[in-house]
Each structure stands twice: as C-alpha cells, then as structure tokens.
C-alpha cells in the first residue's frame, strides 16, 4: 500500500495521513509535528539568549520575555520532546516485538490528533492576544492573576494534548503486554521496548494529576471557581503538588525512552549484547517506581518543613543508584566490544559525560539545604538542560539518524550528521555549563534582564554564543534531511549492518501489514541470533502464511479532536463573548457525535488475503 501511496496526488496523500491508523504513518506524523514544534521552541530559545546576551538589554520587553520562556518550556516538553519520542515508539516498538500494529490503531490516531490540535491551540495564543506568561509550571497565584487569555490557552491546550498523551501511553502498555510475538518474553524485550513500557506506565499514573490540576485551573479562570484563590478558602500550594506529582514522573517519561534508544545504539555499534540486561531492566523499573516518590524535591523552598524536606531529599538521592547502574552497564557494553563511530553512536558516546554531569548536579540539588541556594537560580536551569538536552534531545537526534532508515528506507548523510553532532554538542556545553556558575553567583532564573554591575555579563555572553552553535547544528540537520529526501537513495534492510533486534530483520520498505508471518523469537537480540546462524530470512516464523486482518482508515479521530479544539474556544471566551457557550456546546457535540458514530457503526476492518501475500512474495524483494 505504501508504494501505491506514492503515486497518489497531494490531496489523496494528505487524506491518507489524516485518516491513517497505521503506526508507521502515525510515527511520521509525530515526527513532522514534533519536529516543527522543536523548531518553534528552538527559535524561542534563541530569542531568550539574544535578550540575555548583554546586561540591561531591551531586545524583548519584560512581559513578552515571560511569554517566550513559558512557551519555550511548554513547547519543548509537551509538544516537541514527548511527541518525538512517540514518533520513535510508534515506528519501532511494534516492529521490535513482532506485532502487526499497536493494540488500538484507532486510538493511536486519536492520540496523535488530540496532541496536534492541543498544540496548535496553545500556539494560536501568539496571535490571539498573547501567550501564557506564568512559566511552564504555571504556579497558581501568578497564573490566576495573569491578565488576558494566555494562561487559558495553556490550560486548555495542555488538557487536550495531555489527553492524547494519556491515550498513547495506555495504547503502548496494552500493545506491549498483549501483542508480543511468540517467544518474545518480557525478559527478551529490547530495552527500547522496556523503557517505552515503563514510560507508558508512568504516563498512565502521572497524567491524571495534571488533568485534575488543569481542570481546577480551567474552572478557576474561566468558570468562576476558587480552588486556588486563598482569599476564598482556596490554596495555591495544591497546584504545586498536583503539578509536580505529574511533573517529576514526566522527567522520567522523557528520559527513560532516551535511555532505551541509547541502550539499542550502544549494543548495536559495539556489536555486543547489552551488558547486564536484567540489571538494566530492573534499574528502569526502579527509576520509574522511585520517580513517583520524589516530586516534592521541586518544592524544598515552598516551606513544607524539615521532615518532609529530609524525606524527599533522601528519596531523591536514592534514584542516583539505579541511574548509576545504567551508566556503568553502558560503559561495560562498550568494553570489549567493537565500537563503530557512526552518527548515532557519536550521540550515544556524547550522552554519557553530558548526562553524568546533569545527574550529579541533580544529586547536589537533592541535598535540601543546598537546594535552598540552588533552587530557582541559573544552576537549576543548567541542571535540567543538562539532563533534558544532554539526555533526551541527544537521544532524539541519535534516534533520528538511527531509525531514519527504518522509517524512510533512506539514510541521513553520515558526514553531515557528524558535523551536526559536533556543532550541537559543543554548543550545548558552551551554553549550559557556565550557567551553573551564574546560578552560584546569585543569578535567579526567569529574569528578563540583569543589571550590569553584578558580575554576570561575560558568562551570559558566552552562554549566548554557545546557543548559536546549537542553532547551526540544527540548521545542518535540516539541510541533511532535505538533501536525503531529495536524493531518495534506498538502502534496504539492516543498513547499519549490525542490527540486532527484530525491527532490522523486516524487509524494506516495511509492508503496511508489517510481518507477513508472525516471527518466532528465540532469545534476546533475535535478529543477531538468526544472522549468526546464517539465516538469510532474518527470522523464523511462528505461523504459516494466512489471511491478515487489518483495520480500516478512519477520519473520526481527526473530527473528534477537532471538536475539542472548537469547544476550547468556547471555554476560553466564556463570560466575555455571547457565542462562547454555544461554541463550547458545538465543539463537544462534534466530539460526542463522532464518538457515537464510532460506537454505533461496526467497522470490522478488512483482510489481506493469503493469495495476495503469496503473489507478493514471489515478486517481492528483501
């Protein structure tokens, strides 16, 4: 079907993508949308660094600066990093476990479109009276008193896209539990599948508190409630707890899949089985578990008292142990291996010192009395960029190069990739390392400017120069992508030659039904085992060729999400415009009608017949 799609016109292709329920196409949708939001967030970052390049700068006004930092954080976390991770999860996990698709293809599409419309809604704030300006944490007292509609866009936009994330998380949980090929036991699952599994469990438990918090915020700001108004018996600290009960696991939602990607890369390009596989799995699960026990370390200065602070301090330190286990296992995976420095491997190798640096400053901040100094200073800005950029973003870039051949059957240029790496990596350390010291020297975060007499001028300038390198890196990457797409040179199966897991065993381009016959998994690193035994097919099969049941495409997820998008405008202008409530009703009506249509109309899908599969086998190629 994918080869047929290429012959279609633009409109037909667009329609195909809007209605698709194929995990491979949804992966591409996530990649494009997440990539665009990554660019938007990156431009916002550049504006921030231009403003702070020199003291007393007036490049940006005070209010606009706050909007930009808020949108930079929110965009990067919710609209860039997570969707890009979902892109790889969608592209890789079903193939990695030998499944024909995710468990709920329809929900997969719904999750994407909710994220899409939520993200668009949030960014429309720029054109409709101003973006949110209370920080990505949107602490209640400031958020409630923020004038205009900025924070309303934040609450509604995140609510919609958060719903999409929750759906996607549940979908991956069910997929990984139920859809594994015969022989793919839990302890044979590749680490990327494992980390997707744990991250999805974190999503399942972490997003509901955010949903609750956002609803309270929506009710307070748009419908006259007083959950966060202390003069009416509300409490602002509740928001901080709700936000961080979500927010801390969110950090692990971002980093665990990154760990997964790097685990795959380390073992692939060291030509070696992942060292201490079971310890790695255990560490992943343990990090996920402990991730829920430590949220209040974001609130050491809120005034919770010494007992709470001490407990959360020690609990936080505990997370360093499983994280350290992972670092050493990666090192020992390389040890004794045969390391090939491809672009993905360069990112992985660059990741280790970067993430260790970010991790140890995390332990420093776990020490509560020390955190009284570090909290809300530039030290913490440095810290979380070290873990998020040095961990997650490096993983996203590594994953882009690594999985590009799997997704598009072409290969990004290696030389350009390495240039991108060195520019980005140098720029990253140049930008953020020095910010640790700015924080120690008394510079608070989220300041739109700073006075010239405080000894921060030079370091801020250096930091801004570093940002230019990062931007150049991204420009090289974009050029690389465009050139690769234009050249369109097909590379076929296992282009890295050292692929170990099932996704590399599948013929390229990947058929829309994935596996003609469900494979039989005989151990960890299935494809490696088959290759070592000289199996040219790359896999052995658990079933004879038979009819394959496939789901039909559907436009309903798109319409359902669009209804929420429309309804959100009604909620936003409630009490201000006469049409607000009717529009809210209309939006919800669209959503509920499409839900009704989905429930009442039986859609049984279709079958790819055995005869067609056999035909294809004769004419097809590996």
């Amino acid at each position, binding site marked *: 079907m994918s080869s047929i799609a290429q012959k279609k016109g633009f409109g037909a292709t667009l329609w195909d993508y809007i209605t698709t329920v194929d995990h491979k196409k949804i992966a591409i949708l996530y990649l494009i949308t997440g990539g665009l939001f990554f660019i938007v967030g990156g431009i916002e970052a550049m504006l921030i660094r231009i403003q702070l390049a020199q003291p007393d700068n007036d490049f940006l*006004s*005070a209010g606009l600066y*706050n909007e930009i930092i808020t949108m930079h954080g929110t965009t990067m976390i919710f609209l860039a990093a997570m969707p890009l991770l979902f892109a790889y999860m969608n592209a890789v996990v079903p193939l990695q476990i030998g499944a024909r698709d995710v468990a709920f293809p329809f929900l997969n599409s719904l999750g994407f479109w909710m994220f899409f419309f939520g993200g668009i809604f949030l960014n429309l704030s720029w054109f409709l009276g101003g973006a949110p*300006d209370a*920080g990505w944490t949107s*602490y209640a*007292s*400031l958020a409630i008193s923020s004038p205009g509609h900025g924070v309303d866009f934040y609450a509604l936009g995140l609510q919609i896209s958060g719903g999409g994330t929750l759906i996607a998380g549940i979908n991956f949980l069910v997929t990984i539990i139920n859809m594994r090929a015969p022989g793919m036991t839990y302890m044979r699952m590749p680490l990327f599948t494992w980390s997707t599994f744990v991250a999805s469990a974190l999503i399942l438990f972490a997003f509901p508190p955010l949903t609750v918090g956002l609803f309270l915020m929506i009710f307070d700001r748009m419908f006259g409630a007083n959950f966060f108004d*202390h003069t009416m018996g509300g409490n*602002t600290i509740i928001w901080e707890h709700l936000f961080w009960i979500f927010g801390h696991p969110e950090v692990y939602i971002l980093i665990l899949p990154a760990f997964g990607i790097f685990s795959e890369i380390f073992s692939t390009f*060291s*030509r*070696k089985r992942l060292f201490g*596989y079971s*310890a790695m799995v255990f560490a992943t699960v343990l990090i996920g578990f402990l991730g829920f026990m430590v949220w209040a370390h974001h609130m050491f*200065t809120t*005034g919770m*008292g*010494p007992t709470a*602070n*001490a407990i959360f*301090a*020690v609990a936080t*330190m*505990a997370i*360093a*142990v499983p994280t*350290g*286990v992972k670092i*050493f296992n990666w*090192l*020992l995976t390389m*040890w*004794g*291996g*045969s390391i090939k420095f491809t672009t993905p491997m360069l990112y992985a*190798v660059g990741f*280790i*010192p970067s993430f260790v640096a970010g991790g*140890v*400053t995390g*332990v420093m901040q776990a*020490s509560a*009395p*020390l955190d*009284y*100094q570090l*909290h*809300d*200073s530039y030290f913490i800005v440095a810290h979380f960029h070290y873990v998020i950029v040095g961990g997650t973003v490096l993983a996203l870039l590594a994953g882009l190069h690594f999985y590009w051949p799997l997704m598009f059957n072409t290969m990004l240029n290696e030389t350009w990739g390495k240039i991108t790496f060195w520019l980005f990596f140098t720029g990253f350390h140049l930008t953020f390392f020095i910010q640790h010291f700015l924080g*120690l*020297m*008394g510079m*608070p975060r989220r*300041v*739109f400017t*700073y*006075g010239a007499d*405080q*000894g921060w001028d030079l370091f801020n300038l250096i930091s801004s120069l570093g940002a230019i390198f990062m931007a150049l890196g991204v420009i090289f990457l974009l050029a690389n992508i465009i050139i690769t797409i234009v050249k369109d040179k097909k590379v076929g199966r296992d282009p890295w030659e050292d692929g170990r897991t099932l996704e590399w065993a599948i013929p390229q381009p990947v058929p829309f039904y994935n596996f003609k016959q469900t494979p039989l998994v005989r151990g960890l690193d299935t494809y490696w085992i088959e290759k070592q035994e000289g199996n040219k097919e790359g896999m052995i099969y658990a079933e004879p060729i038979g009819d394959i049941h496939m789901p039909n495409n559907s436009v309903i997820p798109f319409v359902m999400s669009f209804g929420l998008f429309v309804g959100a405008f009604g909620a936003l202008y409630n009490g201000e415009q006469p049409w607000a409530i009717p529009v809210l009703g209309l939006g919800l009506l669209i959503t509920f009608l499409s839900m009704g249509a989905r429930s009442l109309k039986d859609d049984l899908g279709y079958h790819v017949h055995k005869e067609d599969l056999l035909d294809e086998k004769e004419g097809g190629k590996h």
Partner: protein
Amino acid sequence: MMKGLKKWRLFSMLTALMVFLAGCGEEHLSTLTPAGQVGRDQYNLMLLSTGIMVLVIVVVLVVYVLAIIKFRRSKVGENTIPKQVEGNHTLEIIWTVVPIILLLILAVPTVTATYNLADVRGMDVKDEDGQATAVTVNVKANLYWWEFEYPNLGIVTSQELVVPTGEKVYFNLKAADVKHSFWIPAAGGKLDTNVDGINTFYLDFDEPSESLEDGVFYGKCAELCGPSHALMDFKVKTLDREDFDAWVLSVKESAEETTPATDVAQQGQELFQQSCIACHAVSGEGTTGGIGPNLATFGDRNRVAGFLEHDKENIKNWISNPEKYKPGNLMPQPEDLPKRNGKEFSNQELDALAEYLMGLSVED
C-alpha cells in the same frame, strides 16, 4: 585516540576552572562567598557534594575513555565478533553498593542541616522584661517591592533590610499578591513567600556590610512573579548590634513631623502630601499595611525602586513614568493620581519631590 585525549584535557581544564571560580562572583551577591553561618553550612554541603560527585565523574570518565580508546573497530578489526557477555554479578553489586555508601555520606549532613536550618525556636525566647531577645522581621513581598516590619521594635521599612550582625535574625515571610521568593544569595538559601501562609526561617551575618562594594548585600526575588520579576531586588545593610540599636531609635524618631531644610524640599513635601501620602508613609514607626513602600529611610537607600542608581534624575524618571521602568507594577502614573486630574508632574515639581525624598533620612 586523539579524541579521547582531548576529552581528558577538557576535563582537567574544567576542574581547574572550578577551583578558579570558587573565588569568583561578587562578594555581596555570590553564594560562593558566604557571609554568615547559614550560607557557610550550605556552601560546605556544596563542597562535600561536589567532591563526591567529582569522584564519581572521574571513575566514569576513566572507564569511558579507556573503553572508547581500546575498543574502536579500527583497532579490534573490521570483522571481529566480540564475545557476547551477559553481565557480571560482582560488578553489578559493586556499582550498586558503592554509590549507596557515597550517598549516605551526603545524606547524613543533609538531614542534619535540614533540621538545623529549620530551627526557629530562638524567635520566641524572651528576656526578664518579656522582650524578645532576637530580631524578627516580617517580610511582605509585593509586586515588585519588599516590606520589612520589625514587630518587636515597632518600626517598618521597605526595600532595604537592616539587620544586626553576629546573631540569628528570624524572618516571617508572606506574599501580599502573588508568590515570590526571598533570597539573599550571600547570606543563605531562599524561602518562598506564599500567599497562603507564613514561612519562617533564620539567617545570620558575620560582618557589617560597610566594607562591601556598595555597602550592602543584594537580595533577589527568586520566584517568577510577573513582568518585572527581574527587577524585584532589595538590599541588605548589616550593622553591628550597637549601630543597629541606634538605627532603630532614629527610625522611630522619623515619626516626628519635620520641616525640610530648603524651600524646594518644602515645596516637595507639600506636593508629596497632596499626591503620594495616601500610599507612601514617611514615618518608620508603625506596623505593616502600607499600600506602597514606606519611604522613611528613602534618602539612606542604595537604589531607586530597588534597582536604579540612587540619584535625583532617576527619582524624577521613576515618578514620572513608573510603568516604563517596572512594567506591571502597581504605582499609578502621576496623571492617574486622584488629585492630579490627569496632569503630569512638571519638571519643577519633580525636582521638588526628588529634593524632598532625598532628604528623608534617619542616618547621618
């Protein structure tokens, strides 16, 4: 080979940089030059944790550099298939247990310090006359200024905190509008001023601030509170106990009605009483509750509006257009004041106000 060596060089360079930077930063602003016991405790925790962490980094880097030097494909041969090692239980136990020990070494002083720094019992200790022995300051954070009330001394100031040296000074923190955070980096860590309730902690200062570059420590708002969050600075003046007591007395005296020395200043006073007095008190005696900052000690201050150079020109600029200098602040533009009827201050009126305000002083 070369790449690995370069990383090593980079690392040792960074270590050297760190040592160099420990002496870096402005003395009145940097957490690296602690000005009292609280700051020192936290600084020592930083040194301890940094030490442990550098140890970890060194171990990781040694293994890391050796691995990427020794096991490059160009070295081990293109067609080598490495041994597929499953793992090693002894190693797993080592790198689980050793970090736990390292973390315990950090956890014990952390927990101790957490409790010590939260101990504010000294606040309620009274002498025979029933007077509190320690100085307590009620800090109220406003958009974008700070009020400092001394409940046991019966005085109130704003923007410039004055505290005695050589003893614990206790703080009750609260926000008037949105959440802020009270931070004097050189003296010690921050604590949030919430809208919901009062947070309490203490700080202490070794030396009078006289010897510092500006004669004051810098204080910051550390929690995003709106457009002018970056400008919500305050200053801290530390005096030895004797000077502090004298200062308290002279603030109390500011309650007495005085006539400014010059004609211009008198004119300014009249204008002030028509236009500004509704929000700004000029007597330091009293309690919290001013709509705008108390100006009793204005002439002694280090900054106008918390961040502008302390001169008449800036006073005039500030009064004539507060919104321009601190976006989102609550001080009305002059033309919006009730008795101005839409009229801005003339240059001459601004001169008079500036002259008068500069004369509001309790110090010599």
